[in-house]
């Protein structure tokens, strides 16, 4: 196959290509996984949520 008779060399030729494809598949499958928010983004969200809650409370007259 592919003009290479030694199975060790044919094998490693294919393994090299397959390992690069593994990297591609892994990258695509996990493209959006593992994202982390910045500490300041988290703080902003928390203060926004607090603001929302207090507004709601005022609104409802609690």
């Amino acid at each position, binding site marked *: *196959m*592919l*003009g*290479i*008779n*030694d199975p*060790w*060399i044919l094998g*490693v*030729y294919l*393994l*090299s*290509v397959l*390992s*690069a*494809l*593994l*990297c*591609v598949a*892994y*990258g*695509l499958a*996990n*493209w*959006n*996984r*593992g*994202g*982390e928010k*910045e500490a300041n983004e988290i703080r902003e969200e928390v203060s926004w949520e607090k603001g929302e809650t207090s507004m709601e409370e005022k609104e409802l007259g609690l």
Partner: protein
Amino acid sequence: MDIILLNIIILVYILAVGYLGYRGWRETRDSADYMVAGRKIHPYVMAMSYGATFISTSAIVGFGGTAGLFGMGLLWLTFLNIFVGIFIAFVVFGKRTRRMGHNLSAMTFPELLARRFESRFIQYFGGLVIFLGMPMYASVVLIGAARFIETTLAIDFDLALMLFSVIIAAYVVLGGLKGVMYTDALQATIMFVGMAFLLVMTYSHLGGIAPAHQALTGMANLVPANLASMGHLGWTAMPAFGSAWWWTLVSTLVLGVGIGVLAMPQLVVRFMTVKSSREINRAVLVGGIFILMMTGVAFVVGALSNVYFVQNEGVIAIAAASGNSDSIIPVYINAAMPEWFVYIFMLTLLAAAMSTLSSQFHAQGTAIGRDVYETLVGMRGGRSIPITRIGIIIAVVVAVILGYVLPPSIIAPGTAIFFGLCAAAFLPMYACALFWRRATRAGAIAGMVAGTFASLFWLVFVHQKEAIALGIAKMILGRDVLIASMPWPVVDPIVVALPVSLVVTVAVSLATKPPAADHVEKCFEGID
């Protein structure tokens, strides 16, 4: 070849590099920016920078030439470069390194290990191993690049060495890791384009993938007798099991270079430059393809150059290159490729050398500045950038001086020495730091010291390539190597030093008191 056109192309390239270095400088405000690129690097830049640092000119020209001499067995190195050097390194080691580096606010590889094991000794000893071990590796790359500039641009060697060093020093000193990584990304892109063209043109020139390989397989009877006696069975066959070349291929290339890469400080620090695991996931995709296009292409083309030379000149590649395997790739490019490609390929090699050197200088600068000097004088905060800058300038000056004064026989094994040292000194401790909560400070220190000295001992007294070049064994023992019987003189130090270091790290850790639970918790926060 049009020297003026080539000089113009290179000038444009240098200007682009200068601009990216300037951007790095403009965006550097604090030491985190300078040492870990502010921990907010784009995944493409991170992956390309990792790849370009990983792959030097010698990986393409030197190892490509070795493939021209010995054949496609070298592809085992490509496979490990991708599977271990990218996939395992990024997914298994990289994500934890990033998280732990962030938890401990570490800015260099020795600092990460030192803070994990709460030991200042680890930081300055590690810094010293890097600062003392890396200059020879750096000067190998530097001399290669200066020779290349001398022959292609018709610039005097000494002037080329100085000019080249000053240009790199300028953007590394000013731009810090941001400058290094931005320029790396440009250089890696150039390298990718150059190698992609080389692959396509070689296969199309030789009639396609299978016919090209078939022709090479059919040439096994042309292997010279001296190579056949080393175990060479043809360019598309593994060397004879247990032969000298088999041992060199398996132990030095596959284990030494293939696995040693996991603990290279200038690569590990890249993981600490991204914001989250998501960036690492994305970088895996880019890195895997990039490395395949670098060493994969270099080794396949190197081996296939034999077909070209036999068909066109009636001799095998090593004969066409007058017996010097380092010349196989350049001679092949000049003979078989169109002239416009020769320009692209020269730029590719220049980019490969610059990207590797810039990261080496940066790693050495942080090692001597932050890891050794600041740790020993007990200084923290504020002045890290100027101290590291001075460290980088010292590293550049040392590499240039080594380039001028050391004979090639000493410089050539520099890369192997550094790879072996890093693997033995750092890899077991690094793996335990990330994966074994029970590992202790005493275990880490004992393993690092044992690995360093086992590796140095093997290099000086047993592994014949370095032992003969260094001449210390001859001076003390009166003979070239301690054990002359095969296979020991060709067994790479990593095969011995790495297990020694690992066993010592584990045994001493188990024999000493476990580390404080709250510290371990802090290190592993956010790590499953």
